[in-house]
Structures are given as C-alpha cells and as structure tokens.
C-alpha cells in the first residue's frame, strides 16, 4: 500500500490513525465518566488543550532543527509569576506587566539560544540549567506564596484570558469563516498536487472533512456552554502563524533543513546559527503567552504552575509525528498530539485518578511515543 501512496499521503494516514486513537480515548472516558462529554467539561478541555498546544507549537519550532527546550514549564511559571507580582505588589497595569514578562522571556530564551549556538553545548544541558534557574527565580519572585492574578478578583487583561468567552453567535460566524478558508486552502493544495502527479481524491477529501467536522463540532458544543473560550482563539492565531511560518517561509525551510542535515544546510548557505537563535526567541514568546494563560487559568501564581508542561509539550510533538532527531513534524500533527495529551490529562482528573497513577500514565505515553518515533523513522 505504501508504494501506491505518495509520501504526503502516508503522513495524512498517520494523522487519521491519531484521530482514531483520540476517538478511542474519548469513548473510553465518556463511558467511564459520562460528564466527560458535557458541554462544560468540553469547554474546560478546550482551554487546557489550547494552553498545551501553544507551548507544544513552540516546542515544535525547536524540535524541527533538532533542539529541545526543557525549561519551558519553568518559564511558564516564571512569566506568570512576574506578571502577577507586578500587578499585585507594584500596582502595574496588567498589559504593561505582561509586556515586561514577555520581554524577560524573549531575553532569557534568546540568551539560551545564543549560548547553545555559539558555544555548541547540547540544548538539553543548557535548557535543563534553564529549568532549574527559572524555577528558582520564579519561587524567589513570588516568595513561595500564592499571588492572585487581579486585586480582589476585578477583571483585568490577565484575568480575562481564561474567563472571557466569545458568545455563541459570533463563534458560529468565525467557525464558518475558518472552515471556508480551510476548504479554499485544501482546494489549492489539491490542485497543486494534481499538477505534480496522481492524488488519492478520497484521502484529500477526508483530510478536509475531518478537521472541518472537528471545528464545527467544537463550536456547536461550546455554543451550548458560554461560547468559544479566549484561549482557543489565541491558539487559532498561534497555530495559523506557526503553520504558515513552517510551510511558506524561508525560516521554516531553514528549520527543516537544519534538522535534516545541519552540515549540508550550512554549506548550502542557510544561516544555521541565526535561525536557531530566532527559534529560541520565538519559543520565549510562546512560553510567555502560555504562562499568562496558565496562571490566569489557575487564578493565581503558585509554585506549581507550569510544572512538567515541557514534557507534555515534547510528548505532544512526538505523538503528532515530529522526530526528536529533527527534520520531521508539522503544526497539524502537534495539534492532534496535544489533543491526545489534553484528553488524557483531563479524562484522568475527571475520573479522579490518583496523581501517582497520572504520572505513570504520562510517562508511559511519552516513552511509547518515542518508541513509535523510532519505529516510524526506521520504516521510512
């Protein structure tokens, strides 16, 4: 079968397989806990999924050129902590506080990228150092206390990140538009592929219908509760940005090229160092965005915000078909991978699975996905 299918179609097949896994997970959880499929729970799931995804999309930018960021989770805590402390203890307006935290994240991540590239130290080590340092600085800043995101629960830009919902009616309009754009893009890519050679029509149709149905389903579901949560809109913007960045820009090509064969990329005139540092800087921005959302979702900055999120992000990438050796992976895959992780986490907390078992489940999923990654790269 693989011989009949073009390379791209094989990746689409892997995506479909992932969807099957998701359906299975959903079925199991909804049977075990009927409230899993309630509009309210799905809305919470969407928020959690959005936060995991934004970080995982950033992680993809680093995994593609063969790097990794273990400090992401600590960074999420740190940026949220800086913002909350500035708002609560220094009466800084929320937007300004968020800007300061964003600037700090950009600087720190750019710095780490610079060290990794210029000293050619493995990313693993530097970001592991970053994990510990960020965590220490984070706890120092919040003084190991709980710092609420807004004084007296008054709404500010930080607090509304996870409390604002786009009302049902505009949500439907937005979803309709998104599906329309998706259809147009798919049609164009279908036309282009047809020029290059024979294409499996059914698979093409399926690869449009499935996401379209998912979007429609999500929006209709959310309409039953309060509408589309703001994080899902943030995710939409980030995902589109990353997707276009990866598939239609020089920067994206450079990331894939560096991950596939760094020496060849360098000799071909790709600015390897600059590209990687830029990827770290972008990661810093996405860490900050995730930090704001995650802290707002928790309602306050506490020492555990962001814990182990870097591992969920890596797992999401690998489950979504990215190779840890670099050079392979896509934004759509990462979204599906994050959905698997988010479903797993949310389902387990709904079933009141004890934390120790949750750790074990996450660990097994991470190891399994890495094993799958190796198997898959041997196949191709």
């Amino acid at each position, binding site marked *: 079968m693989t011989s009949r299918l*073009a*390379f*791209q179609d094989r990746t689409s097949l892997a995506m479909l397989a992932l969807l099957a896994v998701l359906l299975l997970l959903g079925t199991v959880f909804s049977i075990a806990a009927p409230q899993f499929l309630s509009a309210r729970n799905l809305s919470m799931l969407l928020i959690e999924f959005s936060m995991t995804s934004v970080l995982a999309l950033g992680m993809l930018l680093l995994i593609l050129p063969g790097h990794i960021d273990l400090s992401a989770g600590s960074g999420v805590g740190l940026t949220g902590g800086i913002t909350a402390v500035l708002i609560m203890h220094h009466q800084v307006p929320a937007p300004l506080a968020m800007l300061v935290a964003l600037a700090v994240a950009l600087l720190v991540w750019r710095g780490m990228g610079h060290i990794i590239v210029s000293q050619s130290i493995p990313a693993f080590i530097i970001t592991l150092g970053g994990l510990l340092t960020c965590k220490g600085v984070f706890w120092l800043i919040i003084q190991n206390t709980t710092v609420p995101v807004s004084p007296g629960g008054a709404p500010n830009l930080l607090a509304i990140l996870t409390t604002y919902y786009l009302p049902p009616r505009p949500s439907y309009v937005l979803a309709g538009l998104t599906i329309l754009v998706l259809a147009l893009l798919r049609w164009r890519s279908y036309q*282009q592929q047809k*020029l*290059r*050679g024979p294409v499996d029509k059914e698979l093409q149709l399926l690869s449009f219908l499935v996401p379209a149905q998912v979007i429609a389903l999500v929006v209709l579901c959310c309409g039953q509760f309060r509408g589309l949560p703001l994080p899902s809109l943030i995710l939409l913007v980030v995902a589109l940005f990353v997707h*276009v960045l990866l598939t*239609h*820009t*020089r*920067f994206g*090509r*450079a990331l*894939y*090229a560096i991950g*596939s*064969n760094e*020496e*060849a*990329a*360098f*000799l*071909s*005139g*790709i*600015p390897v160092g600059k590209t990687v540092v830029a990827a770290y800087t972008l990661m810093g921005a996405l860490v900050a965005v995730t930090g704001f959302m995650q802290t707002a979702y928790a309602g306050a900055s506490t020492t555990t915000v962001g814990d182990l999120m870097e591992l969920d992000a890596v797992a999401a990438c690998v489950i979504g078909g990215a190779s840890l050796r670099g*050079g*392979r992976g896509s934004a759509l895959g990462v979204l599906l991978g994050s959905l698997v992780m988010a479903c797993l986490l949310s389902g387990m907390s709904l079933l009141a699975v004890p934390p120790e078992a949750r750790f074990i489940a996450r660990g097994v999923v991470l190891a399994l996905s890495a094993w799958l990654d190796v198997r898959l790269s041997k196949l*191709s």
Partner: protein
Amino acid sequence: MSAPALTPNAAATAPVLQLRGVRKRFGGIVALAGVDFSLQPGEIHALCGENGAGKSTLIKILGGVHPTGSFDGEYLAFGQPARLQSVRDATQLGIAVIYQELVLCEGLTVAQNLFLGREPTHGPLGLFVDHARMRSEARELLGRFGLQNELDIDQPISTLGVGQKQLVEIVRALHQQSRVLILDEPTAALSTREITTLLALLRGLQARGVALVYISHKLDEVFALADRITVLRDGRSVMSAPAHETDAASVIRHMVGRTLTELYPARPLTQASTETPLLQVQSLSLAADKKSPLRLRDISFQLHAGEVLGIFGLMGAGRSELLLHLLGAWGERRQGQVLLGAQPLPWPLTPQEAIRRGLVLVSEERRRYGLLMDSSVGENLSLSSLSSLTRPWLPLLNEELEQARNTAISHKLRIKASGLQQPVRGLSGGNQQKVVLGKALLCQPQVVLLDEPTRGVDVGAKREIYEHISQLSAAGLGVILVSSELPELLGLSDRVLVLGGGQARGLFTREQAQPEVLLAAALSQKPAAAGAPTVTQEVR
C-alpha cells in the same frame, strides 16, 4: 574456528593470502574487476594505485569487512578457502587490518585500549578487572615491540600524537597471534620521526615472520620497505613485481596508464585574458583552528572567466579544505586574501555571504554534505536560493516561481525522478549528484567550486555532468574542479594546480599536464614539506 597448522615446507612455498579473479560491485559501480593478489610468508607487500583504484575494497575483502559471498572469485587464506563472515573471523585466523580511521577510545589509557574487551580479571566469577596485571602485561607487550620509550601505558589516548595512536593500534592488532598485518596508508598523517619509528617496527615484525600488506602513496617509503609491489588500476592488478626489479617511474606509469576516452566534451582552451580574473587567491596560509599547525601554506592562483581550473592532489593534500575555506566554511586564515572580481572577499565569511556574492560549492560526499536525504528533490533544489524566492511585499515564499524554476532546472539537468516531490534518498547516485549541481546553479553563481563531482556516479551520468561543466565554462563562469580521477581532470581542465604536503607543487597548462607529470609532482617529497609536520610535533 582454529587456524590450520602450517608445516615449514608449506609455509615456504604457499602464499599466506591469495585472491584469484576477485570481483566486487557496489550497485552499478565496479570496485574490483577481477583482481589477483598473493601475499608470501614474511614479505612486505606494497599496494599502490590512484584513489578509487580499488585498494580499500581489496583490503576490506582480506579483512572480512566484505564477507564471503558478497564478492565473486576465490579467497584463500593459509592455503584453504577463507569463509569469513565478519571481521572477527579474520581476526581469529590471524589477519589484522589497520584502517586509516583509527578506532581507539580517546578517553581510556594506552593499557586500557590494548586490552579493550579482553581485560584480565580476578575475583569471584571474574567480576573485577585486574588492573595490576593489565598494566604489567601492557608494559611487557610494549617492551616486546621495543616501544617502551615511545608510549606510556597510563597515558590517555587523547593526549597522544597521531603517530603514537597508530602504534597503539598496531600493537593492539598484533596482541593475539596475528600472522598477517594489513595497513591502509599508515604514514599519511605522520611526521618524519614518527615514520622512522613505524617503519622500524614493521621491519621488526617482518623478522618475526609476520606478512605485511602496506598501502601507501609515498613511493620513496614503498621502495625503502617493500619486497614486492602490486599496482591496482580500475579494479585490476596491472603490475606485480619484486621491488628491486622495478622503479618509481614504472610504478607511476602503471598507476595512470589509462587512455582518455570519448567521455570528455571537446572544449576550446580558454586563453588567459588580460581582464581582471574572476577569482584571485593570494598567498593563502590556512590552519584548522587557532591552535593547529598550518594545513595549507602560501597557496596562490587565479581563475578567469570561462576557465576550468583543476586541482589535483592525493588523499589528504588539503584540496577539500581549500574549497571549503573559499566558501567560508572551514579553517582559520593565517595569511593572504581572496578577491572575487576586483573586490576582496571579506573574512570571516559565511557560506550564506559567499553564495550571495556568487561563489558556490558542490561539496564532496553528497549524502553527508550535500543533500537533505529525506527531503524532496524540490526542497533540495531550492535550498541555496531561497532568498530569490521571497516576495517583496510579504515574507512568504513564491511557490509558483519555485515550482517553475525547479521544473526547468530538473529538465535541463535531466534529473530522473518520479517528480519534484520524491525524496532524494530514492534517486540513483548520478541523479542525486545532479540535484546537488542544480541547487548550486539556481544560485546563479559566477564561480562554481566542484569537489569530486562524479564520485559514485555511473558512466552515463558522469558524461552528462562533464557536459554541464563544459557548458558552465562556455557561459563565462569560472569553475574549480577538484578530482582524484586524473583522466577527468585532464579531460576538462584548462590548467591544473597540484597540491601536496600542504603546498602548491606546480601549476600546469593543459599541454604540460601529463598524467605522469602530475602524479610525480603530487608524490614528490620536497624537504620543506616533509619537515613541516615535525614542526607541529615540537609545537605540541
């Protein structure tokens, strides 16, 4: 598997190792086309030949790297058909091979490396390494080869010089009763003093009855050491004679004795014009990095528009390093400058900047340095020229233009692929090489640097690549061609620069550039060049 016992009579007459009509192919490439080779007991047998003549393949067969069944023809070891499945089988028969790339654990000491994998043990179940015994046995071993002054058993390998590492490797290989020792260019990276030590060791081994096969490009060494010389060419043994019955000139003649075929497109000789040369290299002296000794010394040449400048040199002459340096991808410049047109090329330089200014490299070892193997033909073609695909008003790639451009270049170069979407891994060697060439041409370069552009490419594709090179020069580009294949170099170049021992050994016009002349220049051991590595030894 126990080695057969040799009676004294049999040992005196029967060859230790013998190959009869051995053929070996790699895909479409014939590496050995019926080689006969025989090694007598206790002799030092030198194996000579140009790069790619089949020497490495031959010793890999002898050493069990290419197992029985992967080649045609007969292989007799100690009078019996050798059925080697692996290197281990060869070792057990007493055949040891030292390859050019040394395989020592850098972090371990000399003694630890000597006993790697067979450490003496003590304690219950032999659980603990007996360090005291290992050290005393190591010391004794070095003493047996007269190397106790050369090597310290407790020294980590990483602190040793190349020559000392070579000695460790040899002692390790001989550690168990080896009867045959095969060495692949053991002296290529050694200083004069180290070479002397090594040659003394080899003579000592010979006196103990070990038979040696010795590959070297240095003919003076070969004649000083060898009892017998065999020359390989195009996968055949074209000469095998006792060393005292032949001479260097005859060996060189046999190494190059090929006739130029119709493969090369006729090119009018480019007259060195009075215009400013496209590229001027002015007394470049280069080292690998700040601490390293000079790799290339005082190299100067000019390249004119429409000219093909060949660069010839043996393995390790610094040809690839020179090209990589021109692209800004290798080395530390100690002296000299490079002018592209009338403008000096800045240094430090990045490949990105070099390509932007019109200098592009088709690198050797395309799988390692040239291609993204799992990416598509299209992505590989565009890789160096993405900047010209960016739209002016949006930082997005113009994919229609990309498609059109890639389609055009793949038609022009006749790249055979199922489409631009096919991963390059699935292409033949020739077509992969055309993708690398296409990638370079899409940058619209002024100067094209070609490093072994036809290695591992079948004859048909070779011919096509030659035509493209010829067209490039006809279009007024400057081409620098590095090749180990003399006929190719002579068939295409207007002038040939010979590198050897880190120096320029002469610049020859097309009429002057006879194969024997070039090879003699590359092989010559000028005192200055031979002395250069000694200086590094002292610096260390």
